[in-house]
């Protein structure tokens, strides 16, 4: 265990990153999936994570959403520690109360949507605002309908997920996450479970978010073209660490590392 006294209680300054991973390590038993990850994401930045399967990409998002506990290091969100909390001048592992407090800044969309099957599209979106944020039903409805409008699902607002296509479900899931007004949005392979012909309807929604909203976004994707189009920065993960990162034009156009070159050419051949 690293000595957590070595980590700042909070990150302050003019350029406080919205998300900061500091020396984060994660293993499952003997298998280390992430070794000493350092990654800062600025406010409003759109960062894509690419890499072969098993490289630890998805784990990065799941740790940030607190779905996985980290073994070492600290994650900060908006300058405040997420995975830990200050106690008597040092950082200790966060309790559920602290996590609940800090999770409010983060929203996530999943590969398999994970909509609540017993609720309509609208009810899915209203659930968090009403139950967790304590909004009135009317407020939550206005907010949810506005977001369903944004993702182009307002006409299906009273349908249950089982009546919706994969692309439609994923758009509702995006609206549901946005309804919580997170500062950071996480997209975990949101197009991987979709039929090819509906991928566009989901990527278009994300494009719209990038151009019209000042959200900080972190996206794991297999769609290189999409990542290249919309990202401010692309990180290539390999073997549990960032092998190479940079603006998309550079990383895709002129990759420096051999592994990056191999990966990108393998992906191009597959297409």
């Amino acid at each position, binding site marked *: 265990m690293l000595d957590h006294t070595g980590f700042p209680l909070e990150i302050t300054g003019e350029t406080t990153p919205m998300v900061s991973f500091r020396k984060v390590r994660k293993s499952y038993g003997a298998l280390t999936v992430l070794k000493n990850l350092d990654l800062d994401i600025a406010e409003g930045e759109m960062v894509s994570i690419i890499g072969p399967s098993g490289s630890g990409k998805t784990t990065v998002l799941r740790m940030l959403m607190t779905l996985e506990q980290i073994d070492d290091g600290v994650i900060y969100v908006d300058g405040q520690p997420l995975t830990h909390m200050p106690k008597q001048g040092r950082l200790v592992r966060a309790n559920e109360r602290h996590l609940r407090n800090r*999770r409010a800044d983060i929203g996530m969309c999943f590969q*398999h*949507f*994970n909509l*609540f*099957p*017993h609720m309509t599209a609208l009810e899915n979106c209203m659930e*968090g605002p009403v*139950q967790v944020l304590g909004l009135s039903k009317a407020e939550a409805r206005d907010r949810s309908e506005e977001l369903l409008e944004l993702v182009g699902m307002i006409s299906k607002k009273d349908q249950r997920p089982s009546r919706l296509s994969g692309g439609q479900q994923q758009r509702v*899931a995006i609206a549901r996450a946005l309804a919580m007004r997170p500062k950071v949005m996480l997209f975990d392979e949101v197009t991987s479970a979709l039929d090819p012909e509906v991928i566009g309807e989901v990527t278009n929604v994300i494009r719209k978010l990038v151009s019209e909203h000042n959200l900080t976004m972190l996206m794991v994707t297999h769609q290189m073209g999409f990542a290249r189009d919309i990202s401010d920065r692309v990180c290539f993960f390999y073997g549990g660490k960032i092998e190479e990162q940079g603006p998309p034009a550079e990383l895709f156009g002129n990759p420096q590392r051999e592994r990056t070159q191999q990966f990108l050419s393998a992906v191009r051949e597959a297409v």
Partner: protein
Amino acid sequence: MFDWKWDFVWEILPRLLVATGNTLLAAGAGYAIALVLGLVFALAQRTPYRALTFVVREFVEFIRSTPLLLQIFFVFYVGPQFGLRLSPWTSGMIAIGLHYACYLSEVYRGGIESVPRGQWEAATALNMTITQKYRRVIIPQAIPTALSGMGNYLVGILKDTPMLSVIGVAELIHVANSIGSEHYRFLEPITMVGIIFLAISLPAAGLIRLFEGRVRRKLGL
């Protein structure tokens, strides 16, 4: 039929019908206890406290492996030994409620475990408390899976209420036995009890299936 006396049937029917009321009451009250206590047992096995999980698991296993009849005697007779007298109804409800709570806790557990992991994760991503996760997301989805087991045990508890006769609860078999020994005729009372049980449990099983279908549709699953 052989020596079957209809006059006698009509004579004892009112007493049997009153006893039917008691049988239904015992089954209903026992089931209500089991429903709530079963949920407590199921949730206790999902807490992070290993010792609690272990103790509850073993207790459930123990109750499920031993005869209800013996448990009824145990609850009824052990109290007075320590100066605590329980009425037949109270002991009966404790024993049968506890017994079926253990069965129902397994049904609930199966239901809860059938909810995909992604649903828990989505609820976490919406920053729900553990209570909200269960109440709003998990339990509504666990119920359809649990329903058929819950229905089976409702009929099961009804059919086990005759065991309460041994400590003097005036349910069907108890009354039929009294009638039998008063009149030295067991044919009609015991047969009538069988017919009454069939008349309740067969339609009940059908109704439960109907209800299951409706709940499933209502939850859109």
